[in-house]
């Protein structure tokens, strides 16, 4: 089956089109003047620029991490443009009517209509195109509930106290190489604040689109859930099909104060490159949340895109009784490489974490789970349960599991288990005997394999994720 499998790998990437939009794009290269220009474009206060420059100076001294199970040519950080925005966005459109119709058409083609009346009911969207936020919907409705949902560039001006207090509080500016780079050059992203005791009345969602050639996308998301509040947030991402690799280095910070809950879901479908590994997004992302007392952060991710995925959404369980969850489906095919997982840092008493990771490898891809569960000396009665399952489709792919477990507390309990399996001939035969073709059979088996994770996604997106997996698997069998 494997020869046919090779031939059959000609994956359809629905989001691979390029929008014909005139943009203002910085020339390639990175130095302090570029950062000053970004800051000026965004009309930022002095402290923000200073913060960026500090990060940049640290970054210059840092080394790109090499511990992940990934192989790629060195990234030339001077050949990337660090800012690109549609020309039409220069004078901030006041309403949707003023937004360039071509931009709206782009999102419509991606299945994200930005006209509120056409949208999925109950979902507010912030649409980020290259380096700027195009539009944020349902803002008035959210404001009624006291919820702030806006581009982070706007938040820096309108809510400087909130931003100043929390930005970098979860992921410090020198946390790691890619996070430091993001701190220096981030252009846009979303800011969310849920006031005390408020249950956010709708799903919040940010849709990231890279369009311009040779640009990197460095967005930054900050979500603060004040005491006793709740929010469910979803991000999606796509990019055109291009022969060049493009860099995406995002930072997401979540703050869940006492008794708050944040549910963060990602459907990541960046362009993965062609079957020979040409092109595709390099996705180096730092995502982390802090839980205070009785708070809960739940990360759910469906990762099907990107040539390289380097991503470990983590929870610092600082408050007693706080809860961290990580549910992940990572599918790699062609020449894709993923090294993804989570860190659960248990500091408070009776903290709990659950990790469910499903890795699916097909084609010539490589898929690694990497995780850390750490029980600090104060984590009395803390518990972790981890389950990592890998599914291999074909005999040219690879699946790896690298769990790190550290415990310094005698009353903490950690359980990790991992298995590897393949889509068995028996399973296929059974499905086929019942009239399903092989492709449908595989997609059914894979969907079943991922069920535990899909059920964690908001309903509208669970269906989408299933479909995405199906498209991704198309042609993966001979």
């Amino acid at each position: 089956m494997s020869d046919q499998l090779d031939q059959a790998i000609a994956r359809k990437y629905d989001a691979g089109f390029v929008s014909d939009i005139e943009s203002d794009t910085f020339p390639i290269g990175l130095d302090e003047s570029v950062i000053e220009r970004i800051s000026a474009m965004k009309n930022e206060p002095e402290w923000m620029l200073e913060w960026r420059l500090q990060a940049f100076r640290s970054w210059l001294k840092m080394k790109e991490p090499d511990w992940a199970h990934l192989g790629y040519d060195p990234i030339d950080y001077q050949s990337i443009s660090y800012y690109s925005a549609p020309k039409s966005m220069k004078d901030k459109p006041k309403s949707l009517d003023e937004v360039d119709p071509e931009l709206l058409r782009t999102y419509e083609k991606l299945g994200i209509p930005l006209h509120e009346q056409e949208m999925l009911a109950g979902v507010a969207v912030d649409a980020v195109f290259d380096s700027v936020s195009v539009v944020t919907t349902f803002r008035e409705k959210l404001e009624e509930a006291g919820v702030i949902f806006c581009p982070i560039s706007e938040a820096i001006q309108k809510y400087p106290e909130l931003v100043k207090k929390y930005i970098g509080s979860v992921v410090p500016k020198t946390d790691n190489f890619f996070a430091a780079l993001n701190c220096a050059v981030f252009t846009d992203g979303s800011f969310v604040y849920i006031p005390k005791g408020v249950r956010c009345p709708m799903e919040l969602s940010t849709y990231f689109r890279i369009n311009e050639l040779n640009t990197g996308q460095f967005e930054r998301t900050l979500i603060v859930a004040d005491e006793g509040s709740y929010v469910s947030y979803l991000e999606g991402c796509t990019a055109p099909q291009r022969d060049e690799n493009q860099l995406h280095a995002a930072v997401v910070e979540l703050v869940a104060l006492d008794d708050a809950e944040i549910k963060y879901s990602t459907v990541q479908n960046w362009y993965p490159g062609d079957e020979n590994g040409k092109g595709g997004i390099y996705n180096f992302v730092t995502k982390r949340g802090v839980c205070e007392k009785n708070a809960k952060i739940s990360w759910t991710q469906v990762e099907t895109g990107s040539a390289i995925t380097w991503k470990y959404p983590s929870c610092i369980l600082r408050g007693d009784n706080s809860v961290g969850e990580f549910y992940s489906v990572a599918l790699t095919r062609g020449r894709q490489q993923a090294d993804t997982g989570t860190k659960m840092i248990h500091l408070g008493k009776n903290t709990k974490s659950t990790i469910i990771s499903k890795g699916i490898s097909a084609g010539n891809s490589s898929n690694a789970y990497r995780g850390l569960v750490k029980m600090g000396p104060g984590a009395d009665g803390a518990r972790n349960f981890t389950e990592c399952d890998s599914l291999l489709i074909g005999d040219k792919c690879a699946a790896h599991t690298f769990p790190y477990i550290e415990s310094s507390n005698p009353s903490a309990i950690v359980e990790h288990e991992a298995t590897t399996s393949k889509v068995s001939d028996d399973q296929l035969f059974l499905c086929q005997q019942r009239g399903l073709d092989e492709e449908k059979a595989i997609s059914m088996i894979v969907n079943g394999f991922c069920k535990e994770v899909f059920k964690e996604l908001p309903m509208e997106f669970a269906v989408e994720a299933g479909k995405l997996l199906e498209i991704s698997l198309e042609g993966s069998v001979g």
Partner: protein
Amino acid sequence: MSEWLASVVDRAERVDDWLSPARQQALQRLLEQRWPTRRTEAWRYTSLHTLEKLQLPLASAAENSTSEIPVIDGLQSLDFVFENGQFVGVAEAGHKPQPLEQARLPNGLSVHALLDSANTELSAFNKAKPSHHLFGLVNDVLAQQGLVIHIKAGATVAQPIRVVNRLSADVESHHRVLVVVGEGAKATVIEHGFGSCASVSTAFAEFTLAANSQLEHYRFALHGGEAQFFGGSHFNLGEHARLNSTVVGYGSQISRLDIDLNHVGEHAYAKMNAVYLLAPKEHFDLHTSIEHMVPNGTTEENARGIVGDKARAVFNGRIHIHRDAQKTLAELNNRNLLLSRGGHIATKPELEIYADDVQCAHGATVAEIAEKELYYLQTRGIPRSQALVMLNFGFIQELVNQMPNKAISEWLAPQLRERFTAMEQK
């Protein structure tokens, strides 16, 4: 490079014997190595700072004491006795060691001192031991003491062979063992190291199992105190070879053991159990690596440890299934109990899989409580705290019971229990 390593290199340049061509290669590799830091993955949880600047005299025969090497009751082993890495002689049933030439060896067994083994091909060395082990390379360049043991094809050597090394002086020592088990041969080999003086020692052993051979193996790293110990046991399994190995570690200032198990022939079977019991400030680092290079191999590994007081346990268990190794069955399980607040456990089971038609699994736990078992013991009137103690030791005893040699398990069990009881009372 640390001062200590510089002195190793310096000493190595003065070693000249029939192994020199191999030593030269190893020296080259050693020079390319960086001194491990916390960022070095293989040394993430084990710091070498106490070794970094240490300078100890090399061991010589002069340090040897005349005290007897303890026998394992009922085992009736043939003991090859080392002290501080220096070969003393061959002993049986606790008798005075005799020179090697005068020893009466069982049929099928031949043993030579390392430096008298020029008839062994150089290529027989470093076959099973990978070249990335820093202290393996140190041993390569410096070890002049050691044994080359051959089990003739078809022979069954019933008498257990014990290679025992006592650390009794504050010196640095290096010795190595090569065991070649011929086709269809059977043998039992015990590597037994102990002693707690402020020494630095490396002890590496390689085992080549030819087709259809069977080896029962024990590695006891029962050091303690100030000892800084670095060792390894490395196996190549030929077609249909069978290995049953048990590792027992106590830990010391630094105690690091690397086990490599390579399936080079199809249909080989390996079972490995490891037990570590650590207190009060001991550090024990066990790295195991299972390489399935060919199809149809089977490996079962179980490692269990209990950490008390301020001790630190490190376990790293890797399973690597190569592209061609279809139909492999490999399972690894690591379970740990942490009894005290000052203790620390780091464990990392790893799967690296490049073949799809395999069954691989690993699991790792820290301090899971077997509620069902606890309840059962309690319904029989045993208080919870005491039931926990019983279960905790039972968790170690289970692996001890699996040792194929009863004399060894009966010798070891009371020692482990005593250690455990001392930990519990803390």
